[in-house]
């Protein structure tokens, strides 16, 4: 083979290899968008994961009024009762009747709970709720029960209510569920707990390594220990968390694995990241600044706090951002430390899942929920990519700052 052809082939192989990784990244993004984008909604971000059920009756002091405005959105609309309903198929493949609009004058908007223990509390039908059955009064004054089967589809329900009902009595409905609010809150808790603990330890360690440590054996050992932490798989951190840190969380009242335990474990996972990004920033700070400060009579600690650290703030910020990204993406360590039980109202000392762990929970069950998992993955990816982008900009500024 001539040299020219061989060269061309070899060069082409580098192009092909690079193209492969572009294809993989594109495939990941396309798959997540195709599967997840339809689930993205405000309800997803603010809703509960577990569907709530309600049994509500129209309040006794409600007086019928014509609906205020006409509605021309999705679904079938009853101009008499001020309610619009559409047929949907839920993530669990159930056919349901979903409310798309409730007029403020509608009887459905003036309901109170009939459930024992909650009677009298406001419990109106809302957009997104799934109607299970309806009781209404017909022209002869009798109460008619409209079961799920008798309601049929949305069109039939609206027709029945429009033509036969003279008053609405009560109705059973379910919240949609499948929301990730609880996991978002848990993730925020984890970020705050882990950073609050990791930052001071990490920054102090970096300062010691760069500003104080000479080349003695013990300092070499310290550096080696911190470097080794980087290579430890996160699942091992999880084991360490339950074995070492669980007793610590018991001191403040935790009875089971908890968000606090997860946060503490993550704090240790973040240490190498925080240390190395702080140290990289310290390296860039010119020695002349330190010398200048020292020669003006400042002590070493004054120099560090007032001269060196303010210059290294970009590096610390990079560490914080990378740390946030790591917390959002972490799953294996949390399986052991926060449990895989999805919680709608997580507290610091209760169990709960972060966004990533929630994906693991819904994917490792009997019926994996690909739509929801893709939607959450998409949210995580966007956050992580944005963080990546900001870190890059900071890095560029850092490189320029002492030119």
């Amino acid at each position: 083979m001539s040299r020219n052809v061989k060269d061309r082939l070899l060069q082409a192989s580098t192009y092909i290899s690079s193209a492969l990784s572009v294809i993989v990244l594109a495939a990941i993004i396309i798959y997540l968008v195709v599967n997840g984008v339809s689930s993205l909604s405000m309800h997803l971000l603010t809703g509960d994961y577990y569907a709530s059920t309600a049994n509500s009756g129209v309040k006794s002091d409600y007086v019928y009024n014509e609906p205020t405005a006409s509605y021309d959105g999705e679904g079938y609309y009853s101009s008499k009762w001020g309610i619009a309903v559409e047929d949907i198929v839920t993530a669990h493949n159930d056919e349901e009747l979903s409310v798309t609009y409730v007029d403020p004058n509608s009887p459905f908007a003036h309901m109170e709970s009939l459930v024992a223990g909650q009677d009298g509390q406001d419990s109106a039908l809302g957009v997104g709720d799934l109607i299970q059955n309806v009781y209404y009064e017909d022209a002869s004054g009798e109460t008619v029960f409209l079961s799920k089967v008798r309601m049929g589809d949305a069109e039939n329900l609206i027709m029945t209510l429009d033509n036969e009902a003279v008053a609405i009595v009560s109705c059973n409905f379910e919240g949609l569920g499948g929301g990730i609010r609880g996991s978002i809150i848990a993730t925020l808790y984890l970020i705050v707990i882990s950073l609050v603990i990791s930052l001071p330890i990490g920054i102090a360690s970096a300062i010691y390594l760069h500003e104080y440590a000479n080349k003695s054996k013990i300092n070499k050992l310290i550096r080696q220990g911190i470097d080794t932490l980087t290579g430890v798989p996160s699942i091992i951190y999880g084991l360490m968390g339950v074995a070492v840190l669980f007793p610590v969380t018991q001191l403040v009242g935790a009875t089971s694995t908890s968000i606090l335990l997860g946060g503490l474990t993550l704090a240790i996972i973040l240490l190498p990241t925080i240390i190395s990004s702080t140290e990289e920033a310290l390296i860039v700070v010119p020695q002349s600044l330190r010398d200048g400060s020292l020669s003006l009579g400042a002590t070493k600690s004054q120099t560090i706090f007032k001269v060196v650290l303010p210059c290294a703030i970009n590096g610390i910020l990079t560490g914080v951002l990378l740390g946030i990204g790591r917390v959002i993406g972490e799953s294996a360590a949390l399986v052991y430390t926060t449990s895989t039980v999805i919680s709608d109202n997580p507290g610091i000392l209760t169990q709960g899942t972060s966004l990533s762990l929630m994906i693991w929970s819904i994917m490792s069950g009997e019926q994996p929920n690909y739509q929801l998992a893709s939607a959450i993955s998409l949210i995580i990816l966007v956050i992580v990519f944005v963080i990546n982008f900001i870190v890059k900009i900071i890095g560029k500024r850092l490189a320029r700052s002492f030119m």
Partner: protein
Amino acid sequence: MLIDKKRDKRNKSIDKFFHGFFMAMAMLSASFIVIIVLFVFAKGISPFLPGYEYGQVNLFDFLTGTTYRQDQGIYGVGFIIINTLVCSFFALLISFPISVLTALFIGKVAPKKLGAAMQSIVELLASVPSVVYGVFASGVITVGVRQIASAMGIATFGGSSMLAVIILLAIMIFPTLTSMSVTAIKAVDKDLEQASLALGATKTQTNFKIVLTAAKSGIFAGAILGLGRAFGEATAVAMVAGNKLFGPTFNPFDITRTLTSTMLVGLKETTGLDYDIRFSVGLVLIAVIFISNWILNMVKKRVGRNA
């Protein structure tokens, strides 16, 4: 000039305090690795000691066993170790050439802007969380494997298979391998390249014969790091491994079980033998990573010497 002796003394003691504080924090950070190993060791070894409360397990049977059934209380990780090694090795085998070629593209072949763009793509791939790769793997890779298998007339367990694990791991260690290789390639002495070019070698010949040879040690270090990642990758692998109860698995279309998937799957209670034995599996994982790193570093030294 009048020196305020009192203030001077106070400043000195503040200085000393902070020196001590920084050092203590650094020591604390470094001590975590010791704590991790000690505690996982202590808890992982406990099921093999006499007087273990849920019934002592034979260490030899554990390490050489070919069945892992938590429902029957049989715990053998011998085949799981082999599975883990096989999966990670083949993942490295696929990923290594692609990463090195991509690194060469970024470092030497590509025009500057294209190279930078490619570097960003590698960084993005590195930042994708494990669990997201898992969703992608169970939604796309398993489907692909299932189609390939059915085209060849082989039935799979919904696509969950050793092949799926290998492809997934190859994708996941690619960013590590590539960025380490890029660093090594960019660090190659310019004089070497210019000498090669001056002797009449083409640019491509120089890249493949001189640059890659000179960057060998750094690329090898990347491979070691990547292999460690492959061993320790947990959630994504557990989603597509399928968790076979016995083994080892050598058929790429058969389900498999790795050390990490064993530790994750079926975790329900937080006491008892089934829970404690996961620490033992974790201990085995640490040992596998440590021993393979040690062996590969020896090889690396030898490779480096021959250069």
